[in-house]
């Protein structure tokens, strides 16, 4: 053994993590065995909603275009309803797909009884799930955080996928603004400074692509009452709605 052994080299940050992440996510197309079933289901939903102006793009993403897929499919893309789990803290929802839309319509929302896309391109979910839009992916996680009397809370996450036309220092703003809650048809008050629910969702913060804002959003209301949680980004029209049951 040498007379002196130096200390461990200092740790380094992984170089170019965003590129690595994109490479991983673009690894392979999703299995397509489900495609006919999903296409039939979503077509039925579309017809029921009176929507004839959009259709599902069955093309696989172009690997050369990065994990976002080919640049200009003008319509939402279906993704499979994944097998669900029933572990503690989840009701078994949550699935995303890839693709992109030139509108505010979600790029993924698997058609199933618990998630669908309406004629306006609004993604609908029951209880929980992720809507993946062009600029953001928006997740409402299953289950309520620690209950507080007179308050309704959910843990949510908004991730930046793509910057808009006017980013500031390579970042875009994520705030409370897009979130609203209704119970019994009445819009609830936002509770943006309650220290009992941590980590709280940021009131306003700037994020780069691939970064996420995660936290609890809280409104005045009753946790045991049914609620309609809406995310609507005013800049891009990216809209998703979660129907959340108050019953356990």
């Amino acid at each position, binding site marked *: *053994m*040498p007379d002196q052994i130096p200390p461990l*080299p200092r*740790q380094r940050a992984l170089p170019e993590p965003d590129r690595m992440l994109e490479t991983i996510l673009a690894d392979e197309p999703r299995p397509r065995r489900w495609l006919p079933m999903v296409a039939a289901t979503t077509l039925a939903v579309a017809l029921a909603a009176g929507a004839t102006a959009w259709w599902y793009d069955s093309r696989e993403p172009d690997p050369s275009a990065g994990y976002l897929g080919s640049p200009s499919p003008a319509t939402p893309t279906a993704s499979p309803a*994944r*097998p669900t789990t029933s572990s503690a*803290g989840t009701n078994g929802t949550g699935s995303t797909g890839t693709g992109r839309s030139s509108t505010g319509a979600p790029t993924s929302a698997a058609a199933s009884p618990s998630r669908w896309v309406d004629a306006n391109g609004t993604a609908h979910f029951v209880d929980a799930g992720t809507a*993946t839009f062009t600029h953001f992916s928006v997740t409402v996680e299953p289950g309520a955080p620690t209950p507080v009397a007179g308050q309704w809370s959910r843990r949510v996450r908004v991730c930046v996928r793509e910057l808009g036309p006017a980013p500031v220092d390579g970042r875009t703003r994520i705030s409370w603004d897009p979130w609203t809650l209704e119970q019994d048809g009445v819009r609830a008050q936002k509770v943006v400074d309650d220290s009992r629910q941590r980590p709280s969702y940021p009131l306003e913060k700037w994020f780069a692509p691939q970064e*996420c804002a995660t936290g609890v959003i809280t409104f005045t209301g009753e946790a045991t009452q049914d609620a309609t949680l809406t995310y609507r980004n005013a800049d891009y029209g990216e809209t998703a709605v979660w129907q959340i049951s108050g019953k356990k």
Partner: protein
Amino acid sequence: MPASDDVLDWELLRSADESAFTSLFERHRDRIYNFCFRRLSDWSRAEDATQAVFLQLWRRARAGQVEALRGDTALPVLFTMAHQECLTQQRTLARRTSLTQRLRQVRTRERCDADEWLQAEHTMQLIREALATLPEGQREVIELVCWAEMSIAEAAATLGVAEGTIKSRLSRARTTLAGSPAAHLVEADHA
């Protein structure tokens, strides 16, 4: 890092949730990268191994083959995968990039001190040679507990052995290295 973040993300990952995978990747990528470097003494191969670990995880998620998380953190699972990946890389005659190529890589990819980059690799090789006298099991415990700052329980979960085994291996390693120039490598406040 709140443990619940990993639990929630892992549960969503089992449904191939892309944003959950992204969160797990962002949270743990650097620790896996540095763990792989300390096994391989090579930054480039550590990067390859890190990508292989997360790629494998994402493929499993897409195939619906991710098992439920047993603890509060995903680290034991990720370290186990990284451990296996590093073993694979060590066993295969991995392509050795020439010094010139590696210098070019570091100069174009990062504006860092190339000398420091190479010095770290050389230092790591010295350290691994110094620890070569220890049995593999003891070296693994040093890597996880002293270097990767895992708890005894997490290291036990990673290696699939009892916590008592981790403690005894660590104790034997410290006894062996006591008074040697490598003694400082097995010091850790929490171990």
